């Protein structure tokens, strides 16, 4: 290749300084690389579009047979039982929000406090050790978390919550929360760390001690970053599948009691696609309708988070 040859000789390729043949082949090479890079980045857009198209295509089929009125108006979700078939999405949405809610109730305080400790209190050495250790939590395969919830967390919780069902929303919710702690702590820590030192010094200068400085000055100024971390964490919780599929039971109920079994949208999709529901049937098409709903929810969360982090960047620049 001309570029390599040129750089080996130590003469950088510059237009005008070399022969025409070398110039064109160099820019052709450049252009090929550029095209390749562009292709890589467009690929993700292409995949997203393809997913949306497939979801809509199959979803339209579903909604041709089940009116939107039933989908949003019914409170029962039992598409597999031919004698009492109902297509109300709310029990699944409810299950998803319930487990995600429990997860956030765990992840938010722990993640945020961990972030504050790491950026404001921890000695550099401790920080170097703790941060990767915390991030290790995010690397545990979710199937391991699922069985951890079912076989360890649930029996332990039963000691404190007597009326807890074997499959319930509480235990997978808590474990899911543990899983997303690093997501919140890492991103929030970045935001807290990015708060300019001048603010800290100003607060100290006004006579504030460390704690008020953190909670009155630093956390509020890092808030949009923290909120972005939160929304990303929420969409991670909404999309989490394996933990809830294993430990939450497979029973879609419109109930906000975390002690009872529940079924999330993702768990439902998994159960249908791993069973042998034949393709093309109405039962099979339900997973695309659920998929659309899920897609809309996570997309909304991601958009919110994108807005927030953009706001953060503007603030940081200002």
């Amino acid at each position, binding site marked *: 290749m001309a570029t390599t040859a040129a750089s080996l000789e130590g003469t950088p390729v510059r237009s005008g300084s070399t022969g025409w043949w070398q110039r064109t082949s160099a820019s052709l090479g450049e252009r090929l690389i550029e095209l390749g890079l562009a292709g890589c980045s467009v690929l993700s857009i292409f995949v997203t579009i393809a997913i949306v198209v497939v979801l809509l295509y199959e979803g339209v089929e579903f909604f041709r047979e089940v009116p939107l009125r039933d989908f949003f108006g019914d409170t029962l979700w039992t598409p597999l039982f031919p004698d009492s078939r*109902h297509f109300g999405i709310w029990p699944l949405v409810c299950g998803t929000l319930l487990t995600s809610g429990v997860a956030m109730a765990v992840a938010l305080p722990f993640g945020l406090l961990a972030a504050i400790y790491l950026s404001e209190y921890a000695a550099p050495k401790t920080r170097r050790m703790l941060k990767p250790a915390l991030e290790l939590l995010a690397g545990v395969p979710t199937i391991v978390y699922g069985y951890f919830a079912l076989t360890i967390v649930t029996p332990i919780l039963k000691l404190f919550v007597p009326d807890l069902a074997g499959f319930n929303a509480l235990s997978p919710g808590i474990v899911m929360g543990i899983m997303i702690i690093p997501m919140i702590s890492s991103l929030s820590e970045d935001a807290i760390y990015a708060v300019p030192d001048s603010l800290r010094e100003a607060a100290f200068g006004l006579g504030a001690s460390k704690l008020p400085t953190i909670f009155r000055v630093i956390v509020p100024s890092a808030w949009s970053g923290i909120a972005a971390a939160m929304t990303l964490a929420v969409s991670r919780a909404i999309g989490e599948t394996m933990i809830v599929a294993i430990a939450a039971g497979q029973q879609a109920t419109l109930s906000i009691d975390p002690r009872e079994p529940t079924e999330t949208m993702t768990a439902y999709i998994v159960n249908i696609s791993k*069973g042998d529901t034949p393709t093309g049937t109405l039962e099979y098409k339900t997973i695309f309708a659920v998929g659309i709903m899920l897609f809309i929810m996570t997309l909304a969360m991601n958009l919110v988070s994108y807005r927030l982090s953009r706001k953060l960047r503007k603030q940081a620049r200002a």
Partner: protein
Amino acid sequence: MSNTSRTLLLFLAVTALAAPACSKRKQEGRTIKVDGSSTVFPITQAVAEEFQKTDPSTKITVALSGTGGGFKKFCRGEIEISDASRPIKPAEVEECKKAGIDYIELPIAYDGLAVMVNPKNTFVDKLTVAELKKMWEPEAAQKIATWSQIREGWPENKLRLFGPGVDSGTYDYFTAAIVGKEHSSRGDFTSSEDDNVLVQGIAMDENALGFFGYAYYIENKEKLKLIPIDDEKPDNGAGPIAPSPETVANGTYQPLSRPIFIYVSSKVAAEPAVAKFVDYYLTHVKKLSADVGYIPLPDRAYELATKRFADKKLGSVFAGGSKVGVTVEQLLASEAEGK
């Protein structure tokens, strides 16, 4: 060497080392694919393991996706043998016919459907068929939610139900026997194709009740409490009767006893490897099925089944789906007739 390239090199080395483990070993001989009922799975698995010892050249894979799931694959020609915990349904017969696939139906054992609660449950000592119906019928959805609604004097505790997935023959048979209509029940219970999930669910929950094949109960005896069932028909054993090899074989554990089957695709039945495996199956299933907790058929039934396979007799003697309360004698009679 930079850090990145060292990492990359390490990664490549690990991948290269792991690669041979993933590559398929060269296979001579035939692969026989079996799929279907999770109830029949342990038997087929046991037979396949033993068979493989005598004939390593034939590879046998056994999967479980429910009787319904198995027949769907069977009628698409994806598998050679379908495990079934109920006879083939008319709709499935149609499906197979469309694909030009015929089948040889072979009964292999008897199974009782066990109804169980959590061992900590002290108030349930027996259940009648009528009480089970009250719990499981479609009308019970959202309404029958506590134990006190089933029998007077039972506590106000939540009733939490566990059952096999709707694709399973066990679900079909249970609903036919208890609700009175095959494939019809309430929808608000925890259903799973994986019987171990159900074991876990009942074992962890004091208010649970569930059902699945007797063999899975035997495997998990200490975690579950078996409930005797009263069909309120004194002529086949008075009072509540618990499933056991004796009560299933002598027809007193009714209506929750049933024959289980394998279906062999007519397309491959003539192949020597398949024929050898099926013959092995029928000669050894008596001992092996008892080993894994099922109730073997009388010798005469296996003789008839072997003959049926040798004659390549197609079709089902149970045309029209699950028949509730088929006893061993009746099965024998219909086998003899169908031969």
